[in-house]
């Protein structure tokens, strides 16, 4: 009995002793929770304060402006991009103006004394994780034309570079270049006579290019299929009158300053020579073959002051027409040297037969002087002499102002 009573008292004692301990434990747990909450709040507050201080420092630092001398601003930490979010998904947009003037005599192919030759608007952006789009719209003085508008797939298997849309064909060197990246105010005679002139091979189609394994040599094969309409060069009368372009490009760095670029091109399509009264009764075709070579020299430590680009293209045309096929040939060779940060001098020799009459041979020579006020504008003068086969010789002084606004994407090399 005593033992039972003792046990009860002992149990009660233990229980009574446990109560404050339990209460204390609960209080400690609560205090720890509150402390954690305080710490968390303190950390969040500290982080936020640091971010706000960094923003303030960035604003204060930026107030000197990019054009003003630096006043040792406090830096901004971790700013991923300072551009406004509202513009993030807009494409890069730019407009390039090309103003041309001409004086002297040219009775065969005269150009206006003054003209706003072209205003090229470009819109370029990534479409989605699988591709990007590039649009180049050319505004002339009297009309608008989609010069190029294509989608490039960047995610295709097999390392294929595939484009669909309207594009300048990969035939030779000059055909693929926009006016504003030419080293002259005009295009060579062989391009005008045999490859469709300024418009050239520029058509709606599909392009597939692939790098071929060749060690350190860059070797790229391109195959293109077009609808078959490229000015006076190719004309499609039926859905099946497609035109084709094949191009093989080999590039090699001879030294870090000097490189050589070689190309071979082929093109085939129906021409308009057999069209009589909207009906293609002749069904004639044109085949073009071309080779091109470009040698560049640009010393890396003085890259902004000096460079030389030598370039040549030889093109053969095999054109079907009434009276039999005409086999014509032409070429140009040019050299352009940058002799100061803003100054370039160049020369070009032209020689080309006519595509529809190989007996007619045009010859010409040009000298250019170019001045770059900045990366975004240039002034060019060109003296041009042409001995036309079907008219009097031309002697002209051409001049050009080019200017660019906006974000025009860099051009391929």
């Amino acid at each position: 009995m005593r033992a039972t009573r003792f046990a009860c008292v002992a149990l009660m004692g233990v229980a009574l002793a446990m109560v404050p301990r339990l209460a204390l434990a609960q209080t400690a747990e609560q205090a720890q929770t509150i402390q954690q909450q305080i710490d968390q709040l303190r950390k969040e507050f500290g982080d936020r304060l640091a971010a706000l201080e960094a923003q303030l420092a960035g604003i204060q630092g930026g107030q000197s402006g990019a054009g003003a001398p630096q006043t040792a601003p406090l830096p901004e930490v971790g700013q991923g991009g300072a551009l406004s979010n509202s513009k993030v998904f807009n494409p890069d947009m730019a407009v390039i103006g090309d103003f041309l003037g001409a004086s002297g005599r040219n009775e065969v192919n005269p150009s206006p004394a003054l003209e706003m030759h072209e205003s090229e608007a470009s819109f370029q952006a990534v479409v989605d994780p699988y591709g990007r789009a590039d649009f180049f719209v050319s505004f002339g003085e009297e009309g608008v034309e989609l010069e190029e508008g294509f989608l490039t797939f960047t995610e295709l298997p097999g390392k294929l570079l595939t484009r669909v849309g309207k594009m300048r064909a990969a035939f030779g060197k000059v055909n693929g270049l926009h006016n504003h990246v030419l080293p002259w105010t005009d295009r060579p005679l062989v391009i005008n006579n045999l490859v469709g002139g300024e418009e050239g091979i520029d058509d709606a189609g599909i392009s597939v290019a692939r790098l071929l394994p060749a060690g350190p040599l860059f070797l790229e094969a391109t195959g293109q299929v077009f609808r078959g309409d490229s000015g006076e060069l190719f004309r499609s009368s039926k859905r099946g009158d497609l035109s084709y372009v094949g191009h093989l490009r080999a590039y090699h760095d001879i030294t870090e300053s000097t490189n050589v670029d070689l190309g071979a091109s082929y093109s085939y399509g129906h021409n308009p020579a057999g069209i009589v009264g909207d009906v293609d009764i002749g069904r004639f075709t044109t085949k073009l073959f071309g080779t091109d070579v470009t040698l560049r020299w640009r010393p890396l430590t003085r890259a902004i002051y000096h460079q030389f680009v030598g370039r040549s293209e030889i093109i053969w045309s095999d054109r079907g027409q009434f009276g039999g096929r005409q086999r014509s040939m032409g070429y140009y060779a040019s050299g352009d040297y940058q002799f100061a940060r803003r100054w370039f001098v160049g020369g070009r020799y032209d020689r080309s037969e006519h595509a529809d009459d190989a007996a007619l041979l045009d010859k010409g020579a040009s000298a250019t002087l170019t001045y770059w006020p900045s990366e975004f504008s240039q002034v060019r003068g060109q003296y041009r002499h042409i001995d036309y086969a079907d008219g009097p010789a031309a002697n002209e002084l051409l001049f050009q102002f080019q200017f660019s606004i906006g974000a025009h994407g860099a051009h391929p090399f």
Partner: protein
Amino acid sequence: MVIRTFKLILLLLLGVPVVASAQGKLNVVTTTEDLGAIAREVGGDKVAVTALARGYQDPHFVDPKPSFILAVSRADVLIVVGRELELGWLPPLLSSSRNSKIQPGAKGYLDASVNVRILEIPTGQITRAMGDVHPSGNPHYWLEPGNGRRIAQAIRDKLSENAPANAAYFAQRYADFDMRLAVAEKRWDATMAPYKGTKVVTYHRSWPNFMERFGLDVMGYVEPKPGIPPSPSHTLELIQDMKRQGVKLVVVEPYFDLKTPQAIANQVDGKVLVLAPSVGGTKEATDYIQLFEYDVNLLAGALKQVTGK
């Protein structure tokens, strides 16, 4: 017949297998030698690093050569400086690379500028009348050891993301780099300490991070505006300012002509100093730490001459 031949050639071309990537190593391509040097510090022998632009060329004006397309097409990781530095030459390389792994936003793409200290972020209206201004701030941020450390952290994380099995190795390599950099920083600070507050002139805005880090004050530039060649009126104005403020040192990058800086230095009885803005900018700047070792020692020597301290 022609069409059939064309199709046959095309099929043959498309059927040729592509080049395999480097065995076992992560192929890392960087746009500059500075990023390449830091990637080597962190990646060690688990990475094969290719830097595109050389340290002695102006990183704003690099030709997007097809040989670069080859390098980028084989990359597992691409590390760029960002802040529009490569705007004139990287986009065509990316769009021709046929490599989805290293496109912006992909797992293999790293913009090294995301977590670094950026100076000269312009505010308000930005126009090209201000010269070749960078809307996202000065891109020459790697010229500050603290930023070098942050770049190394970002590279460690990116390499670990792409090669998780080597994460511990990259972490250990980073820790070692961090330690060596900290030791070197103490040495550089001591070397530059006597010259705190000294005013200098630089050719281009390549040095704000570097000069701020070592307490020097850039009071003017040889270029009237970023990317615009020196003009006679600006040069005369700069000479007057330098004479008034007693500034005697003109710092120039190796890819700029020395004629105008030398003329300015002659007028103020000062000195032209060609510093290396990048790893590889001079043969002594063989890695990231050696770049600062070279620049700090050269700069301190020149400052000693012109200040007499």
